[in-house]
């Protein structure tokens, strides 16, 4: 009988734990944390994730922020100018979400190790050849975002992460 209750308790704890996990990593969190990731220090940044969490963790941007109101509609895009990269957020239902991440210089790199100035061979080694090319631009899509490399004389000149769906 004691074994029965211990087993039942274990099952109950496991079910509750799994249910808890389900809540923590449920669909909304999973949707937000998808696509290619940008890492700066210990902070991982995903496209379309809640921007407040990211900016709280990163602290005040050294280059300041710029808020660009829409010409006619509610909502605004906000730019956070950090050392080496810029975050752009969009606003929906009063909350800000990461819209683009643009790497500005070679002090930062993608999670796969690519930085401005690297060769095209380094890009394809890290990301493969399943890209969409348009002129000197090479775009890798994953989930609902795109990681874009702009090449200039076989060197990466721009790297940007952006949301694929319309705002």
């Amino acid at each position, binding site marked *: 009988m004691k074994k029965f209750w211990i087993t039942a308790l274990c099952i109950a704890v496991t079910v509750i734990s799994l249910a808890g996990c389900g809540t923590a990593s449920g669909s909304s969190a999973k949707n937000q944390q998808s696509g290619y990731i940008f890492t700066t220090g210990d902070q991982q940044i995903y496209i379309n994730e809640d921007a407040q969490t990211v900016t709280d963790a990163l602290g005040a941007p050294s280059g300041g922020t710029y808020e660009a109101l829409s010409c*006619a509609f509610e909502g605004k895009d906000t730019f956070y100018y950090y050392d080496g990269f*810029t975050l752009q957020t969009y606003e929906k239902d009063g909350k800000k979400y990461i819209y683009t991440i643009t790497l*500005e210089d070679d002090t930062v790199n993608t999670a796969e190790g690519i930085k401005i100035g690297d060769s095209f061979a380094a890009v394809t080694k890290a990301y493969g050849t399943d890209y969409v090319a348009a002129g000197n631009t090479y775009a890798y899509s994953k989930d609902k975002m795109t990681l*874009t490399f*702009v090449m200039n004389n076989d060197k990466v000149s721009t790297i940007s992460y952006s949301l694929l769906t319309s705002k």
Partner: protein
Amino acid sequence: MVRSKIKTLGIVAVLMVLSVLALYFAQALLMPKYMSNVKEGALIAEYYKAPKNNDVIFIGDCEVYENISPVTLWQEYGITSYIRGSAQQLIWQSYYLLEETLRYETPKAVVFNVLSMKYNEPQNEAYNRMTLDGMKWSDSKAASIRASMTEKESFISYVFPLLRFHSRWSALTKEDFRYMFSKDMVSYNGYLLQTERKGVTTQPRKTPLADYSFGENAWDYLDKITQLCKEKNIRLVLMKAPTIYPVWYDEWEEQIKDYAAQKDLPYYNFLESIQESGIDLTTDTYDAGLHLNVWGAEKLSRYFGQILRTECDLPDHRQDSAVLSYWQEMEERYEAEKGTAD
């Protein structure tokens, strides 16, 4: 038998008329009114109520309807002008609006703001609506719709906007009933007056672009605007407003300068003359540098008016009895709205 047929036909005819009337009223009720919110949507339609005797027509996006004050151009130089501007007006929309405008009047000068050269394809249905729904039906409107539609839009929804806006029934407000058949004026000859002050504290960075070349479609329409003005013997002037966002790239500037030189067009980038025009971006903008407020717009208009007067040989109409009362009335309305904020 015959009487019965006539009676049936009569009933059918009455029902049809009633149906058409019901649809007409439903459409009038459900279309957005753009009166207290998103006033930009009312700008295009207001033109039809104004006198068509302007010496200058401005075409373009918010960089014209927020940054140029026709009242100041009138007060300072006696220039009669109208701004056919709308939010995110794309260059093909500018072209077709100009084409339509020239059916009503032939100005001495047309001023086009070049920021929209950055867009080469249709962008956004909500902005399209604000430019296109306000236009009267014409070949120009039809062509503009065809050039502007995004993938999800259909031509028929512009012919019968009820198809697009039928779902607004649950969001109707008193405003929808009040402005079903007539609307208040929201602009001053196309100028949307803003009195708030929010200065620039941070300069937006120029995020690098993959390609700085303007698109072929945009160039084609700039050529069309140039050609149309040439055919009508109108002086085309290109301008870039002195606002800092969206950013204006040096590479874009070079392309416009080259085009202007090649076509012998005057081009004024007012970002380069902010100081000279007296604009102070810490006080003369209402949204941190995207658009000027009324005090900034007046400074730019004073500065630009002097240039336009000389460049286009514009007459001073301040003693012209044909237009005097119209402009005096507008001045009163303008000063009253501005005065409430002083």
